[in-house]
């Protein structure tokens, strides 16, 4: 970067507090060069979004910038008044939000929305249309009159996100803030959006501040990575260095908790959880979760130390972290039994009143689940995987086909099933916010299935519920809390405990980790590994192919209601035969090169540790 030309974005010693004076982020320093993509990575609550919004000169209600400087192309954003700030937003700094459907005004046509974003920043009305056509082509959308006359709801999620990207880059801003731009999208769509962003930064010299928790996506797009933990940037450096040989133990652990497509491995779990603002410990904020912590870590926050040029880290023990990766959580299913636990044959299902064959959302789905086996059902949204799960759970009556438990056919609706059958099949939902009764304490939630199935008497309920919580690694203190007092991961554990309360034989997991942070996902996956060893069977529904690799014995890939490919997980992912599966595998973002290829200079050991190494641990 030549001297003299100001950087597109420069953040120096930024501190944001709540209006009541509690620190949210502090000592944030980083910059973004021209044509560069800086990824701001962190888990929920790490302060990454607050930091990124500060680049737009914006603070969410209840927060304020109390120290530090944010400058865009040499202009100090914090010194601007509201009018100047409004002019700068869109023209100098722009923003691509997470949920494209919510960000586009549904009452305006695409063309009008795009042209408006240009004209408010001084582009002449006459030129706006031509520029709009140009932009649509640039983001890979049709530029026809027909397309520009469409309303946002007539576009797919990926197209909507492209329109928002076009709006963001329309005035050639110095810096574009991307807030989890691909989180809600299918993998194939996500891959294309990432490709578009990469092209925009390379071909047009655009600079991006990319806020995300998805490390695999970061690896596809970013030039540099800044890792945030509990409101501080703990490591910042070139992507290929930080993601391959992380210097900070948190970065190392975070990377080890990401499921991998090319490496069949278990997921490392970080003990404990990040302290929220106001409850952060003294010394290094990570010390209470770090096994490398020593006395100094508990009293003094480590200063920024340089690893190499452009790579710095805040840790007293930087560069020595080495993560031992646990093996994949797969189990050896009980194949001695003659009949599988669950058999689904030629299942077909539809929605709406008309049960016509052309409206089937699921057709001809057959699958078996053995005792103690985890079978994964993978597909993009609308593939029919969740409908299949709902049919098995008895929440949706199939049009045709049979579902057999222990070789006995079961009724389509849970209400028509025998008590033993409903008890044997339990369901865990995607979003724990919606799957736990908000008016009931955890004890009350767990009590329902316990009493329904006569697992225990009314007097023992508390004791049995406490045992269930222990099985999902929650303290019995949790019994008297309400769902809204728990974190996302804790809520999902309670939902799992509620399913376990029925003493089921089959647990259906519908996208159970997709609403959770990656490190929390790792702990949940390890929990499922324990259940498999106890002989429980899992039907694991997910869109995340890499996650399947860490847990499932067999995998079925669904597309448009049909099973495209089925087989051993290693085979389906490693050597897909169906073209659709191949496309899916190719599109899935993958973290890093195969760690096994260069084990000598890699701090992360991708392969499972040999048994000998494992037994040495205390």
């Amino acid at each position, binding site marked *: 970067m030549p001297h003299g030309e100001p950087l597109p974005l420069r953040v120096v010693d930024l501190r944001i507090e709540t209006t009541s004076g509690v620190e949210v982020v502090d000592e944030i320093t980083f910059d973004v060069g021209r044509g560069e993509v800086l990824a701001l990575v962190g888990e929920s609550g790490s302060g990454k979004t607050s930091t990124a919004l500060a680049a737009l000169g914006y603070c969410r209600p209840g927060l304020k910038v109390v120290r530090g400087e944010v400058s865009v192309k040499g202009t100090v954003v914090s010194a601007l008044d509201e009018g100047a700030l409004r002019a700068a937003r869109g023209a100098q700094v722009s923003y691509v939000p997470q949920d494209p459907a919510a960000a586009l005004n549904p009452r305006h046509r695409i063309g009008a929305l795009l042209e408006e974003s240009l004209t408010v920043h001084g582009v002449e009305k006459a030129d706006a249309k031509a520029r709009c056509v140009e932009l649509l082509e640039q983001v890979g959308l049709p530029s026809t009159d027909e397309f520009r006359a469409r309303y946002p709801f007539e576009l797919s999620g990926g197209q909507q996100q492209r329109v928002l990207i076009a709006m963001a880059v329309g005035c050639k801003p110095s810096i574009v803030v991307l807030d989890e731009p691909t989180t809600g999208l299918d993998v194939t769509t996500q891959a294309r959006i990432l490709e578009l962003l990469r092209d925009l930064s390379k071909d047009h010299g655009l600079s991006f501040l990319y806020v995300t928790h998805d490390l695999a996506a970061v690896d596809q797009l970013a030039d540099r990575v800044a890792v945030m933990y509990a409101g501080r940037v703990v490591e910042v450096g070139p992507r290929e260095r930080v993601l391959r040989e992380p210097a900070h133990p948190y970065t190392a652990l975070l990377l080890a908790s990401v499921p991998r497509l090319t490496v069949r491995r278990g997921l490392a779990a970080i003990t*404990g959880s990040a302290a929220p603002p106001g409850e952060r410990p003294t010394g290094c904020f990570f010390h209470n979760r770090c*096994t490398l912590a020593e006395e100094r870590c508990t009293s003094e926050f480590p200063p920024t130390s340089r690893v190499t040029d452009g790579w710095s880290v805040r840790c007293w023990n930087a560069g020595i972290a080495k993560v031992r990766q646990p093996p994949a959580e797969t189990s050896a299913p009980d194949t001695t039994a003659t009949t599988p636990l669950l058999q689904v044959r030629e299942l077909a299902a539809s929605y709406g009143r008309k049960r016509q064959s052309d409206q089937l959302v699921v057709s001809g789905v057959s699958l078996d689940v053995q005792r103690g086996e985890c079978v994964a059902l993978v597909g993009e949204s609308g593939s029919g995987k969740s409908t299949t799960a709902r049919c098995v759970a008895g929440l949706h009556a199939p049009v045709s086909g049979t579902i057999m438990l222990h070789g006995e056919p079961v009724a389509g609706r849970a209400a028509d099933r025998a008590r033993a059958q409903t008890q044997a099949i339990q369901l865990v939902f995607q979003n724990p916010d*919606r799957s736990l009764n908000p008016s009931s304490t955890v004890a009350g939630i767990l009590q*329902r299935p316990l009493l329904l199935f006569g697992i225990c008497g009314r007097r023992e309920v508390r004791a049995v519920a406490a045992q269930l919580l222990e099985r999902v*690694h929650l303290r019995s203190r949790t019994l008297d809390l309400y769902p809204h007092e728990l974190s996302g991961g804790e809520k999902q554990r309670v939902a799992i405990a509620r399913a376990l309360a029925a003493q089921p034989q089959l647990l259906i997991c519908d996208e159970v980790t997709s609403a959770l942070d990656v490190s929390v996902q790792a702990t949940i996956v390890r929990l499922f590994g324990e259940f498999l060893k106890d002989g429980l069977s899992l039907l694991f529904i997910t869109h995340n192919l890499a996650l399947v690799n860490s847990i499932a014995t067999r995998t079925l890939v669904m597309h448009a209601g049909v099973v495209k490919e089925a087989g051993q997980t290693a085979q389906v992912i490693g050597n897909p035969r169906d073209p659709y599966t191949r496309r899916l595998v190719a599109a899935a973002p993958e973290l890093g090169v195969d760690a096994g290829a260069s084990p000598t200079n890699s701090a992360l050991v991708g392969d499972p540790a040999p048994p000998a190494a494992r037994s040495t641990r205390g």
Partner: protein
Amino acid sequence: MTSGEMPELDLAPGAASVGAPRAEALEIAPEETQRPARLPAARGFVNGVLGTTTGRVGLVMVLVVVLIAVFGPLVRPHDPSVVVGAPYGPSSGTALLGTEALGRDGLSRFLSGGRLLLLVGLATTTVAYLIGGALGLMMGYARGVFDAAASTVVDIFLSVPPIILALLLVAGLGSGVEIVALAVTAVQIPPIARLVRSFTLAVAATEYVEAAVARGERQGSILWHEVLPNIRIPILADIGIRMSWSIMLFASLSFLGFGQSPPAADWGLMISENRGGLLIQPLPVLVPAVAIAVLAIGTNLVSDAFGRSIGRTQEGSHASR
């Protein structure tokens, strides 16, 4: 430091695979943070209503009218049906509010006339909520043909103004307190059913209800344990407003002469009986009218403060995460 001495982050497989005790596995359990205990609905009511000016003002208004209505008959200076002076006489030591159309003591009649009104308001709303609420719960949960049929009937009733509906019922069944109370109850059922149905629809679509369905809970049990607790707060807020509304409807019907028969003291009836002398002695009309208005406004303020406090509690708890 050589690579051989590198400390390792202890991330070997979990307790199950190496046979470590459960206690160690428990360390995975996150979150030690102590959060403030949740406000139960009752405490939310107390805090929300007593903690805000609107709530306090509303509560005082309601309490004043309720105390007058309940204890008024015990402290009245005269028998409300005994003539103490000339019609529409001025305020005096014996008749603080003057006398009314037939020369009876205005104050004594006012103190005697609220008890039944309040009782009817309370009883009709309670009964209407029991019936309409149960109907709404079933409509919202069962959906399908039952809901479609019941909704059509409810819509037909909702299309007729309630006062006309009540008058029709009274005209058909005859007058008298019991009949009017029945009419006031009946006209409240359709709007309550409609409201509870819409609350139920939203909750019935949630996954905790689906989880209960999937484990084969009976319908009544799902409605009682999963649905009802989650719609009780908007219902509680609605009950207050509806109670003041039913008091007003009952007073209106009394005013029109369908409630208690003339010798009895009743606020609605008082307004009706004494409106002829409004310019000579307005107090026997104004005082009961103001009492009804104060009760209605107070109930609305309390309901409002309660509703807001619940909203604030929930928002607050979400923001703290």
